[in-house]
């Protein structure tokens, strides 16, 4: 950033002391950065009231980074947490960011926040030294006050009347773990009060003068073609505007229910394409259309395994089903488009809107209020493009708020998968070979994890494949839960065959200290009673590594042999995620993962016939409810030698395997397909 740009930039973010930080080259590449501002990835401002504003392209969707990023800044700056204000997901003010996903906020953006904040502390110390006329070495910072023990000055006083911008690379000296006073302390969320009073604003809560609510004419199935259209009755309604532009047919009305009524007056006929497969035949379709596959890993020779065990696992398509459906408000004014969107990717949304409308990105601003859950589903932001198109056509602000039915249709779905494993175990209870074939789920967490001399991994049907009858996309830890369901189930199958306790079998097959530690910790906390399965106890263990974090889950279940219903009684999670920024936030994420995980494990599976989606609301697509939630205990394994790792996804990953393994331990029946519905459990036990 040259001097002129920097002045313009400071004017935009406001006066005071502004600290800008550049990222490490590897991270630059990882994020494929582009756009304004060119050379930074984090910045903060200290104003004359001593308030610190931290700017971040990340968004808050419930995962708690609003709090943990503020904690990191407060720690390094030496200010109270309360003096930090977060400005997130505003493309005009915040540094470019690829998107909020992959448990990356703390891992990737965190170091930049800490560096910027540490550098800011250094700058403030220098200013204080000049102001107080004492040597810098004698000064310390506490709660935003710089002092040498005799004289003192506040950050606010130092920032007063200043217009300083400091650009630094990421080399500032960070505070040591032993000195932490904010990082590592269990902290209540900074968005608490807004969220319990109804004051927290989401995209659907934005109100602009003259704003209209849109409803869009939708096809009955993906791939359907419209053969007739009659909008006369809708046009006749007072106050309703009908938009017909290419493929876009919509009604605009002053109220959302008014728009729904007008949409119901539109008559359209459609033809649906023939269905290639449905939720039952999808597995055959994947295997038939999988092609030769792509061999990702080979080690040794998997060809000649004696007494090989072959197992095929499968899982269905999954809806993200955030409680807040996709919503956006767009305002077209003086050649500029401003959009408030529920999105995980404000900068991606800006690029898509600019491209669709033929605008320069500098004329599109995306703001991200609180997002009501994302789980990977709010990455594409099609609703923002729809709102922008309609606002431009109408010349008035327009809100597009997807109904639940639209959410269950236009949301991207986590892809179904088929996984075939052929593995063998020797007479010492050591895994001898591992030949792994994955269709649909992709390769995340498909590594064998244990010490195996002969390994092959082949992946068929990438996640992005056009094979799917509707759009697919990342679903919390994309594909990892499916791969680990297969792997950790197969490990248990081998342990049972070798007549070895499943915990002992895992420990026998790994020298990885972090893995051994989480396995042992989870088992101990559960009160593990050794024994080769099935023991009848209904207890089990499974582990995975995801987003740099090791997680082991131990669980206890009861299976109703009359109904086939699985009641999960207890889940204990042990997680090693390196330095923990906010233990409370980390535990909330672990509990959230385990609870959400109950869904894809026990009840969730999208039902469809080709592009025709059968599940359009929560009456048939079953989310986990209070009555399904077990007692959840979470343990954080201390590992302060490791930088903070991911926390939003790891604990959901072993859920399928740990519950399937526990069902086996309870009943002797091995469940090979998720979700394990009562009907499937009954069928397996018959």
């Amino acid at each position, binding site marked *: 950033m040259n001097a002129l740009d920097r002045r313009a930039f400071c004017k935009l973010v406001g006066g005071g002391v502004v600290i800008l930080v550049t990222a490490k080259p590897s991270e630059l590449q990882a994020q494929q950065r582009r756009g304004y501002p060119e050379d930074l990835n984090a910045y903060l401002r200290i104003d004359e009231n001593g308030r610190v504003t931290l700017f971040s392209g990340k968004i808050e*969707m*419930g*995962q*708690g980074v609003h709090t943990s990023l503020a904690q990191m800044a407060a720690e390094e700056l030496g200010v109270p947490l309360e003096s930090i204000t977060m400005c997130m997901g505003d493309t005009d003010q915040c540094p470019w960011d690829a998107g909020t996903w992959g448990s990356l906020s703390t891992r990737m953006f965190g170091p930049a926040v800490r560096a910027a904040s540490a550098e800011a502390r250094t700058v403030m110390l220098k200013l204080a030294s000049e102001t107080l006329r004492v040597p810098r070495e004698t000064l310390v910072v506490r709660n935003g006050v710089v002092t040498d023990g005799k004289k003192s000055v506040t950050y606010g006083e130092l920032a007063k009347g200043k217009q300083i911008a400091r650009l630094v690379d990421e080399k500032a000296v960070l505070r040591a773990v032993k000195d932490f006073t904010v990082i590592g302390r269990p902290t*209540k*969320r900074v*968005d*608490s*009060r*807004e*969220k*319990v*009073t*109804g*004051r*927290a*604003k*989401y995209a*659907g*809560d934005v*109100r602009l003068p003259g704003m209209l609510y849109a409803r869009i004419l939708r096809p009955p199935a993906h791939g359907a073609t419209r053969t007739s259209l009659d909008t006369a009755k809708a046009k006749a309604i007072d106050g309703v505007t009908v938009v017909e532009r290419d493929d876009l047919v919509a009604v605009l009305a002053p*109220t*959302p*229910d008014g728009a729904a009524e007008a949409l119901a007056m539109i008559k359209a006929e459609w033809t649906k394409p023939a269905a290639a497969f449905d939720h039952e035949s999808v597995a055959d379709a994947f295997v038939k259309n999988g092609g030769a596959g792509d061999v990702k890993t080979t080690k040794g020779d998997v060809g000649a395994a004696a007494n090989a065990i072959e197992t095929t696992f499968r899982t269905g398509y999954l809806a993200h*089903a*955030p*409680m*807040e*459906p996709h919503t956006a408000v767009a305002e077209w004014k003086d050649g500029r488009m401003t959009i408030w969107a529920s999105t995980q990717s404000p900068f991606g949304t800006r690029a898509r809107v600019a491209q669709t409308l033929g605008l320069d990105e500098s004329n599109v601003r995306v703001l991200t209020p*609180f*997002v*009501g*859950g994302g*789980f990977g589903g709010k990455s594409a932001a099609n609703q923002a493009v729809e709102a922008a198109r309609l606002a431009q056509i109408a010349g008035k602000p327009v809100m597009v*708020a997807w*109904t*639940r*039915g639209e959410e269950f249709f236009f949301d991207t779905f986590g892809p179904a998968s088929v996984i075939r494993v052929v593995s063998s175990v020797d007479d010492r209870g050591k895994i001898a070979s591992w030949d792994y074939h994955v269709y649909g789920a992709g390769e995340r967490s498909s590594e064998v994890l244990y010490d195996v001399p002969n390994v092959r991994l082949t992946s068929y049907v990438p996640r992005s494949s056009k094979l799917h009858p509707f759009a697919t996309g990342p679903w919390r830890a994309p594909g990892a839960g499916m791969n680990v369901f297969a792997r950790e189930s197969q490990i248990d199958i081998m342990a049972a065959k070798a007549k070895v306790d499943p915990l002992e079998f895992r420990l026998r097959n790994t020298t990885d200290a972090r893995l051994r530690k989480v396995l042992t910790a989870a088992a101990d906390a559960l009160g593990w009673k050794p024994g080769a399965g099935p023991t009848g106890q209904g207890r089990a263990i499974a582990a995975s590594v995801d987003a740099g974090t090791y997680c082991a889950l131990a669980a206890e279940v009861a299976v109703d042999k009359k109904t086939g219903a699985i009641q999960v009684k207890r889940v204990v999670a042990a997680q090693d995620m390196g330095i923990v920024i906010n233990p*409370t936030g980390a535990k*909330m994420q672990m*509990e*959230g*993962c*385990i*609870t*959400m995980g109950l869904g894809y494990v026990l009840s969730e599976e999208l039902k469809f016939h080709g592009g025709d989606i059968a599940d359009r*609301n*929560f*009456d048939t697509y079953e*989310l*986990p*409810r*209070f*009555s399904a*939630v077990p*007692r*959840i205990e979470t343990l954080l394994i201390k590992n302060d030698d490791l930088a903070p790792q991911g926390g939003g996804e790891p604990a959901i990953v072993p859920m399928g395997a740990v519950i399937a393994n526990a069902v086996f331990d309870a009943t002797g029946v091995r469940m090979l397909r998720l979700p394990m519905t009562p009907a499937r459990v009954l069928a397996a036990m018959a």
Partner: protein
Amino acid sequence: MKRKIDFKLNGKPAAVDTDDQRALLWVLRGDLELTGTKYGCGEGVCGACTVAVDGVAMRSCQTPLANVEGKSVTTIEGLERDGKLHPLQQAFIDHGAFQCGYCTSGMLMNAWAFLQKTPHPSRAAIVQEMDANLCRCGAHQRILSAIAEVAK
């Protein structure tokens, strides 16, 4: 039918001149600009739009405005009194009983109405009463603990 409907809203008189068959949810969020009550499913199967009508939890997306005529409606905005949080709200903060916050208004209103008529329920009774309210983030265990603390 378009007409004037009078009712009490968070303790104060309110009047709306509109079609009396409109869903209370849209009247609250639009005409009355109380956006704390959320749309989640539109069919009364998720609980995000829960409000209390004469102290009873109702799905506002399924409640025609005519049904609240002359009655007392309480929304999430009505729980706080003189800047002081209701004990349930405080318990939700203390227990970290939310993540994205979108289902939170409905959770609080459902629990609030329940505790009005049953001040000291068992944990099992709380589970049963809250079972039709959905949360996707998985804050369930903390929501139960927060309600249980107030129900002691």
